[in-house]
């Protein structure tokens, strides 16, 4: 029997993997992918609760999250391309001008 607890646990695991990816990776592209993983974990949580409660509003929230994620990916990748033109690299450590 698969319950809400399974889905929420899976969503937490996915979110933690995404956070770990943001923390450990040096490549900006992979960091952006990890952010997408976290957004997907949130969507999974919303859908699982929507199913449990019989409430459609979770689906609508997930649609808006997908919209924002698509815009975020477009802007983020455009920033990565212009950073690559500027630095010749997509490594996070190479963009450390504002480091104190």
């Amino acid at each position, binding site marked *: 029997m698969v319950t809400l607890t399974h889905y*929420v646990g899976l969503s937490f695991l996915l979110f933690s993997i995404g956070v770990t990816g943001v923390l450990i990776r040096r490549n900006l592209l992979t960091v952006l992918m990890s952010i997408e993983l976290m957004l997907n974990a949130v969507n*999974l949580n919303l*859908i699982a609760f929507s199913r449990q409660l019989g409430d*459609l509003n979770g689906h609508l929230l997930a649609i808006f999250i997908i919209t924002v994620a698509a815009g975020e990916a477009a802007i983020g990748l455009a920033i990565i391309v212009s950073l690559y033109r500027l630095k010749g690299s997509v490594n996070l450590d190479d963009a450390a001008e504002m480091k104190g």
Partner: protein
Amino acid sequence: VDPSVFFFWVFAAIVVVGALGVITMRQPLHSALFLLMSFLGIAGLFILNHAEFLAAVQVLVYAGGVMVLFLFTIMLVNVRKQAREPYVNRRAGISVLAGFFLFLLLGSVLTGPAMVNLGPPADPAKLRTTVIETKYASEEKPGNSEAVAWSLYRDYLLPFEIASVFLLVAMIGAVVLGKRTMEKFD
């Protein structure tokens, strides 16, 4: 074994293996392909939760649009030449530990009284009828897409319009950022 249980574990394994692949693969291209695998697993879990429309959106927007965007960017930035240096931070060990403790912290919610004393899930038909039960007779149930559309264009009309403006702004922003010469825009 109940097929919904079987497919839950299959899709959960796909999602987790894909996510772990994203953060461990050296080449961004391999990460992107594992991310695609994870997206498709999530779409399968959406179908198991009676969110058929969102599963289609997930495949079209994420596996279609966002993934193509990632692959084009990987093609544009030549990442292969930096492949020899270490691809994780110096403090990767403590970061993995932090991620693990974040998982434990989040998972402690699951042992709380609200999650332990969980009732049975609601009737799936309720998902389709809560919004539009007045319009339809009881024997004629609409599908998930129709229920979502009714809610989206009636209860969520203003957020929907704001989302369209947001997408326009994101599109213009991406075009401006991606242009080769920025001086012409001064």
